């Protein structure tokens, strides 16, 4: 469970952040799903997502893995996890997936109003919604919201708040470029839904303002 519905940040930032999942269902359309998922993966490569991983390889777009290696790894049950930083690119991908009509579950995580508009524009009938009712319990122990907008892009909690602070510190010192810092932050997310383009924008906004102690 990728936890993508709990991504935090401003509305204007979340407008450029969508996670897209392709999921065969265990016990239903799992067997024989490999070639179908592969065709969807080929299509997604052409739509230039911000990040992408297939569950059989778990190496993201920036790891140096070649598309051929990714496609060859796909077998029955493989899932695709991806992130888009552009609504129109995602919409084009969905148009293509709809046309392929592989019968595999497709899930978009993003602003409800934006997904509603997109679904209407391409004549889709969304089936199920998973709503986030927020964080409860000892919220005083959480990292601050400006750090959480990075860390919640990896739902499994693999992007450490200390790493975000470390990257900010290294950018401030001129040792890293914004994009390099973003790629460092995207690497621990083994589901491939960390959006490095959004992260770059957030670093751009945050770095001049932020004072960091050594972790």
């Amino acid at each position, binding site marked *: 469970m990728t936890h993508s*519905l709990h991504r935090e940040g401003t509305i204007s930032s979340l407008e450029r952040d969508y996670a897209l999942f392709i999921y065969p269902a265990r016990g239903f359309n799992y067997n024989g799903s490999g070639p179908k998922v592969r065709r969807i993966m080929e299509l997604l490569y052409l739509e230039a997502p911000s990040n992408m991983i297939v569950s059989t390889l778990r190496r993201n777009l920036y790891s140096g893995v070649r598309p051929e290696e990714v496609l060859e790894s796909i077998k029955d049950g493989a899932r695709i996890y991806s992130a888009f930083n552009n609504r129109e690119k995602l919409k084009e991908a969905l148009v293509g997936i709809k046309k392929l009509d592989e019968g595999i579950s497709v899930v978009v995580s993003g602003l409800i109003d934006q*997904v509603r508009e997109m679904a209407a524009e391409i004549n889709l009938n969304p089936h199920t919604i*998973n*709503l986030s*009712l927020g964080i409860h319990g000892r919220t005083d122990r959480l990292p601050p919201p400006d750090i959480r907008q990075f860390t919640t892009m990896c739902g499994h909690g693999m992007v450490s708040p200390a790493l975000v602070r470390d990257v900010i510190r290294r950018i401030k010192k001129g040792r890293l470029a914004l994009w390099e810092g973003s790629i460092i932050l995207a690497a621990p997310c083994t589901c491939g839904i960390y959006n490095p383009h959004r992260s770059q924008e957030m670093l751009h906004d945050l770095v001049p303002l932020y004072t960091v102690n050594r972790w």
Partner: protein
Amino acid sequence: MIIRQEICVGCGRCHPYCPTHAIHFQDLKSAVDQEVCYECGCCLRAEICPVEAIEDSPQVYDYPRALRKYFSDPNATHALTGIQGRGTEESKTNDVTLRVGPGEVGIAIEVGRPNIGMNLTNIQKITRALARAGIHEIEPNNPFQDMIQDHSTGDLKPELMGERVLSAIIEIQVKRDRLRHILRTIKEVAREVDSVFCLDVYTLLEPGLTVPPEVLEIIESEGLSWRPNAKINLGLGRAWERKNS
């Protein structure tokens, strides 16, 4: 995870990669606090160590410590379910499986998320509260199910009480008319939990991506609100059509 002291050069590069601050300096070298480490493997996967001193702990797959790995490392496959990750497919394949059907809601309590993790005694506080409230419908396919000793009381297996995991998900599926009761129970137990948890509700949509007003009314009346972003199954899976026909 362990850091081999005879190899470590004490550069500290691995420290910020640990989501739980388990890596610290000890005698000018880096060391992992075994009590705090969740066995998530972040430090190893980062390939940041210049001398390859980071390794899996020899005890990582010994029970019950193995649960740390299964519930903290998204790449680990749970020995019982054969599934990677900490939950199930829940809403993601609901257009095919119809696990949550008309008039029903799915509820997920994602304990330890985001970022904090927890001792398993905190999960037991929630399962006990749910059991006291008469709620025993915990999703059987979730690997968390294997931690439960007694569904009638919500007790977990006693040997797990010292263990810590980065997160575990309590999944429930009920009729919509029980949603209010469950949300109220969860709100009350939230005061006892020494960690955080994320709360999710999933339901079938009405045409036009309309969330059933009955569900929203219950959420609002319990003083809760929903975030503007959500996970939405677009209905392109075909098994649901076959079931209908």
